[in-house]
């Protein structure tokens, strides 16, 4: 029988975040982009005690098998990072854009969301906006109504991409369940 999840609670900040956790590459380094956004609740208020984890392929679409995420050497791209939201509910990663893991597929960031008041983790995807044909052909996106699909597609800004996580409400983010697990 599967072990159930429980909330991350309010007291994770001294335990889970760590130095340079959100910097998969050094900010400002060649090719670096920022993936950032806000986490908001059903009132549209910021969630200042959420934790996001990012897992992604490298720019060539390869799944990274390198350790070193917890103590970054500044040179190794590990494909994984962790960011807590700040008092304004804002999170930010410095990373590289993932490539398609198979030719023609729409690349995306895999995101896990934890927060006080969330009894279990949530999973979602932040798709890159750049390839309309690949997005239109994506099996997950094409199974969603247009307004819900839009919640999974990051939008460009001057330094990279914006992806907001809305836990509840009219533009609630699409969260995923996988076989055998919510």
């Amino acid at each position, binding site marked *: *029988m*599967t*072990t*159930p*999840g*429980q*909330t*991350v*609670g*309010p*007291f*994770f*900040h*001294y*335990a*889970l975040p760590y130095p340079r956790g959100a910097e998969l590459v050094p900010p400002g380094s060649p090719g670096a982009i920022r993936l950032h956004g806000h986490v908001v*609740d*059903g009132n549209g*208020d910021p*969630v200042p005690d959420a934790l996001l*984890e990012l*897992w*992604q392929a490298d720019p060539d679409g390869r*799944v*990274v*098998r390198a*350790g*070193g995420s*917890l*103590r970054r*050497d500044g040179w190794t791209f590990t*494909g994984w990072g962790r960011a807590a939201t700040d008092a304004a509910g804002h999170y930010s990663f410095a990373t590289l854009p*993932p490539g398609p*893991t*198979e030719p023609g597929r729409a690349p*995306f960031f*895999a995101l896990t969301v934890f*927060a*006080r*008041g*969330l*009894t*279990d*983790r949530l*999973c979602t*995807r932040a798709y890159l906006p750049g390839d309309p044909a690949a997005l239109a052909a994506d*099996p*997950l996106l094409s199974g969603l109504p247009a307004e819900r699909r839009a919640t999974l597609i990051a939008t460009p800004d001057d330094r990279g991409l914006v992806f907001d996580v809305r*836990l*509840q*409400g009219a533009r609630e*983010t*699409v*969260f*995923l*369940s*996988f*076989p*055998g*697990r919510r």
Partner: protein
Amino acid sequence: MEKQAAISAEIATIEAADAGTGTAQPRLDYPPYRSTLLRHPTKDPHHADPETIERWAPCFGHQDVGELEADLTVQHAGVPIGERMVVTGRVTDGDGRPVAHQLVEIWQANASGRYLHKRDQHPAPLDPNFTGVGRCLTDADGTYRFVTVKPGPYPWRNHLNAWRPAHIHFSVFGTAFTQRLITQMYFPGDPLFALDPIYQSITDPRARERLVAAYDHDVTSPEWSTGYRWDIVLTGSHQTPLEQP
């Protein structure tokens, strides 16, 4: 704030409504835990077939975790106050395969029920010899092992006279992104179980009992520490043994 009796009545009503449905995971929508009200998704999760990146998990290695990080009693100049104990167990996937060489993180209150966190206002003493954070990698058999002290229960402000049962927070990675788990480990026979809306958010009694460690006298060592065993079962891995990323 509501009294415990009102919260307990809500807990009982939801458990009765869910009886027999066998939900193995906590309800996201669980009003007795008040912070869920504005934070639970209202739409059903969308079923996804895991794609390549979701069928793999990040790698962690010995460059990530120091040997001493698994012993929460040696991180300061002195010895922490409290019941020294070993917590050990195996991390396996839904098919019984060990999750080998993977990261396990824990954090907890000290023996008085106080977290070393700036937002914890419980007027119980901090322990200068206890931080309450540990990390380790599982071995080839999926076994993790921590040395720590038993955490105390502590009050929170969900309702009037709300107290959390003593617990250790666990963060576990599997071999696939989809298996990611953060949960809490509890201790056998805690009288606060029935009163706690976080524990009770798992409405299937058999499922929530999966979060309770077992006292294990074979883990206890003479003249040194008590021992608890707690195994963690993740979902299936979505990988075939020959698959390459």
